[in-house]
């Protein structure tokens, strides 16, 4: 190296005189640790909405009765067929399947893996998720194959005067 640092007075315009590369200060341990702390902060902040929603559910808003919603007429739904509907909200996809003369099952059909819409395959008697080939048992909603680990939330249905109504979403039994 040249003798530029040996001059007296020492020619220094800032404390970075000993830095050899561009952005060297950005790559040091201090900067890296700051990034780590910042990431911890991001985690903390992003936990807040989950906590807020959970607290809201805990405060008794969870078990609310949604207004019963008519799904379809019995006569429109042959045995073995399925119909999609929205329940309880307008953006909560759900599926109703008629298994036999008087047996209906309904689930919220957002896959419990990554929320793809699960559909009913009549020929195989299974509910299948197209995204990663998750499969669900049609009687219980339990996952039987693929990545999903949680059962689909079941919706209680009721038949009245030839129409089928969604009553409410069952809670998981822990």
């Amino acid at each position, binding site marked *: 190296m040249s003798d530029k640092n040996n001059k007296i007075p020492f020619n220094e315009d800032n404390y970075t005189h000993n830095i050899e590369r561009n952005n060297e200060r950005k790559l040091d*341990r*201090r900067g*890296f*640790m*700051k990034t*780590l*702390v910042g*990431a*911890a*902060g991001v*985690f*903390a902040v*992003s*936990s*807040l909405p*989950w*906590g807020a*929603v*959970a*607290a809201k*559910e*805990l405060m008794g808003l*969870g078990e609310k009765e949604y207004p019963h919603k008519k799904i379809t007429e019995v006569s429109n739904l042959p045995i073995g067929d399925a119909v999609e509907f929205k329940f309880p909200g307008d953006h909560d996809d759900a599926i109703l399947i008629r298994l036999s003369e008087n047996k209906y099952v309904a689930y919220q059909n957002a896959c*419990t893996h990554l929320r793809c819409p699960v559909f009913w395959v009549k020929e195989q008697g299974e509910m299948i998720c197209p995204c990663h080939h998750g499969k669900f048992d049609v009687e219980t909603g339990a996952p039987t194959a693929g990545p999903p680990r*949680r059962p689909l939330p079941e919706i209680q249905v009721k038949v009245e005067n030839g129409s089928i109504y969604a009553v409410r979403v069952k*809670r*998981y039994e*822990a």
Partner: protein
Amino acid sequence: MKRKYLGVIILAAILMMNIVFTQYMVHQYYYENYENVLIFGGLNIVLFPLAVFAYKKTINMRA
């Protein structure tokens, strides 16, 4: 082990815990165990001041 890496190691461990807690939190949310969601969310939040503390404690350590 060089002492000057202690802070980095601690912070990396904290971040690892953050990831684990977040994962638990989301899963517990969908299982509708809302108490557990609050517990893990709380842990996640507590980790942040902890990380700041660890940073301040270790940043001036010399090798």
